């Protein structure tokens, strides 16, 4: 029997490996069909609210949903956005994949998934729950695609977003008060303020372009003040054949380059990452920084500095517009057998209660806040809320332009670094980006 003993471990390992390779061989406990309230129903939800504060909001919302729905259990899977982007597409093709998941907007994520028929159109549920009265058309079109997944910004609704985002200027209230500086009302005032701050020996704009993506926001924030809302819509949705190589974009690039050359950015900004640049700003290094409302929660904890927020002001005589939009939406897997329950969950995610919890966590809700929520607005959160409401009511919510093509993000990052590094001129910058854009428009014809 000696040979038997020596074979045993090998056989066990082999068996284990075979089971591991063939996941479906592992027995799964049978799931009850929707509606059978006596046994437990599990709703699998993937979200990317992994930071402490955000995660706590999700836990609270999920617990309250379970309480209101006896027999329903929410199985929450938390991932970072990077991780979610890489794993979600395959997971949605699985028959046991997530029932509800946060799907990033834009062509390479939501568009590709609609094209592969992985997401459930939500038009009927939108009517049932009245989502049309919660969100403006400008907001819902960001989560919409035609059923073939080719045209962005119209067609079916595929997701609802609980949070909102706006890009603007954070400023250090202490530094401003000390020098008697005021929040500028026009872009011209803003630029002379930059020169004044620089002359006082302070870094005007805390900035770091090593990670790349936030340079897109610096450029595009200026761009949004020069172009029209129609242009930004056309550019991002890929309709009406607009070009990136236009004088307005060139001018925005010139202004950005001028800021860099005038020393308005943190010294050595090309070698500083986004988080490091924010750490410097938070420590009182730099008078202002240009980024999104998502940083507000971060700037009120563990710091003795006081910060405020304002929209990058418009050029004299021109209207205001800012990069903004709604956060990553929740969507439903097409093949789920719990669509009704999933839709109810989505409705809960955009309820007044959700708005209240997000606001209390210092994040902008995409839904309007209930009057009686008792949210303190005489603070940094209040500043971002006013900024969001201003652009939302004036139809001045712009776009994150890197959604425009699947390669736009990488192209913009590389070309902006070249522009700021003196390797290309503003004209060469817009021409290089247009090359990417034109190639994409050709490919979807």
């Amino acid at each position, binding site marked *: 029997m000696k040979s038997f003993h020596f074979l045993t471990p090998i056989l066990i390992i082999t068996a284990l*490996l075979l089971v591991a390779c063939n996941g479906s061989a592992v027995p799964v406990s049978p799931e009850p069909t929707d509606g059978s309230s006596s046994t437990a129903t599990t709703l699998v939800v993937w979200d990317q609210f992994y930071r402490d504060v955000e995660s706590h909001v999700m836990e609270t919302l999920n617990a309250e949903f379970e309480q209101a729905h006896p027999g329903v259990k929410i199985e929450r899977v938390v991932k970072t956005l990077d991780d979610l*982007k890489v794993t979600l597409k395959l997971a949605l093709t699985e028959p046991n994949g997530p029932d509800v998941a946060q799907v990033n907007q834009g062509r*390479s994520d939501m568009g590709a998934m609609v094209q*592969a028929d992985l997401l459930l159109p939500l038009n009927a549920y939108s009517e049932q729950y009245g989502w049309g009265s919660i969100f403006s058309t400008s907001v819902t079109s960001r989560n919409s695609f035609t059923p073939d997944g080719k045209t962005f910004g119209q067609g079916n609704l595929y997701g609802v977003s609980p949070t909102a985002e706006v890009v603007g200027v954070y400023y250090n209230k202490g530094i401003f008060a000390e020098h008697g500086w005021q929040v500028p009302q026009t872009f011209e005032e803003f630029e002379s303020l930059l020169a004044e701050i620089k002359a006082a020996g302070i870094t005007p704009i805390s900035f770091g372009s090593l990670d790349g993506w936030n340079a897109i926001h610096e450029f595009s924030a200026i761009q949004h003040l020069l172009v029209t809302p129609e242009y930004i819509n056309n550019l991002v949705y890929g309709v009406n054949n607009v070009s990136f190589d236009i004088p307005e974009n060139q001018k925005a690039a010139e202004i950005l380059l001028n800021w860099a050359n005038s020393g308005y950015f943190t*010294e050595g900004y090309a070698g500083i990452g986004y988080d490091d640049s924010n750490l410097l700003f938070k420590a009182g290094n730099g008078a202002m920084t240009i980024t999104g409302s998502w940083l507000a929660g971060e700037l009120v904890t563990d710091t003795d500095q006081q910060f405020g927020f304002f929209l990058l002001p418009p050029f004299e005589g021109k209207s205001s517009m800012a990069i903004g939009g709604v956060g990553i939406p929740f969507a439903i897997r097409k093949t789920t057998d719990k669509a009704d329950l999933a839709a109810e969950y989505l409705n809960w995610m955009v309820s007044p209660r959700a708005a209240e919890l997000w606001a209390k966590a210092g994040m902008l809700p995409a839904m309007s806040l209930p009057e009686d929520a008792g949210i303190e607005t005489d603070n940094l959160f209040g500043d971002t809320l006013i900024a969001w409401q201003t652009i939302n009511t004036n139809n001045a919510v712009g776009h994150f332009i890197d959604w425009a093509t699947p390669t736009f993000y990488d192209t913009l990052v590389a070309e902006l670094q*070249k522009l700021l590094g003196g390797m290309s001129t503003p004209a060469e910058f817009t021409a290089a980006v247009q090359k990417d854009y034109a190639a994409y428009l050709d490919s979807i014809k």
Partner: protein
Amino acid sequence: MQPNRAYPGEKKWKGWLYVLPGLLVYLVFTFIPILETIRTSFYRWDGFSSEKIFVGLENYARLFTDNDFLRAFSHNLVFIIFYCLIPILIGLALASLLGRGKLPGMNFFRTVLFLPQVISMVVVGVIWRWIFNPTFGPLNLALRALGLGHLTRAWLGDFTLALPAVGSIATWVEYGFCMILFLAGMQRIPEEYYEASSLDGASRFQQLIHITIPSLRPEIVVAMITTIIAALRVFDLVYVTTRGGPGNSTLVAGIVIYRAAFLQNQTGYAAALATVLMLIILAISLLIRHFQSQTVELE
């Protein structure tokens, strides 16, 4: 060596049983995925939908006109200097210092010098991002303290210096590996060679050139193959430090493949890039081994 000879009384198939667990792991997690990647490279596929279109060699034809990939690959070639050439030179120098002399605290030096090799690449990247930070990084602070303020740079954000800066991190990681490899090999060299040569009046440098390096040839070949492969397939280090920037000046093949596969939904094309990269690595490795066996035969 006679690989097919079994021990008396033992059946041949038992040998296969011994390797079976390892073989299975290799087949399932390495070999089959490689075959699958090669198969995918002939399709146009986004990586998840059921629509997979056979396009033959289209992905491969596209690759040769893809300026991003060609440029990225040229950066990989530059990285060979930092991953392979410099670490081997430093490794040789350190090994000859630590290997034969009776330096006090030698084990300490061996351990400390090998340490970078043990740390995860992501951690290495984070550490060096901090060292290179223009505002509060120790490198620029030290330069300023020494009165060399004019030499401070935004290292990782500088178009000409970013590639050598990332490369020097790789050197920092790889030289310890080369050193340990050479130290082990030096145990094999008989002490008499050194004694005899020093009686004949050879200097330490001459001993290094004529005794140590020729004797270490097998170790040098291993170090070359391992580090060149590391230079060609680098992803983590660049991703953590610069993500290929500024302006694609540190773009490497691994980043281009990652972008195509996971961000741009071009899994078929990414598979073609990966296949070509694999073939290049295979060819270079075989070439080095070929030269090695040739020189051995000449002797």
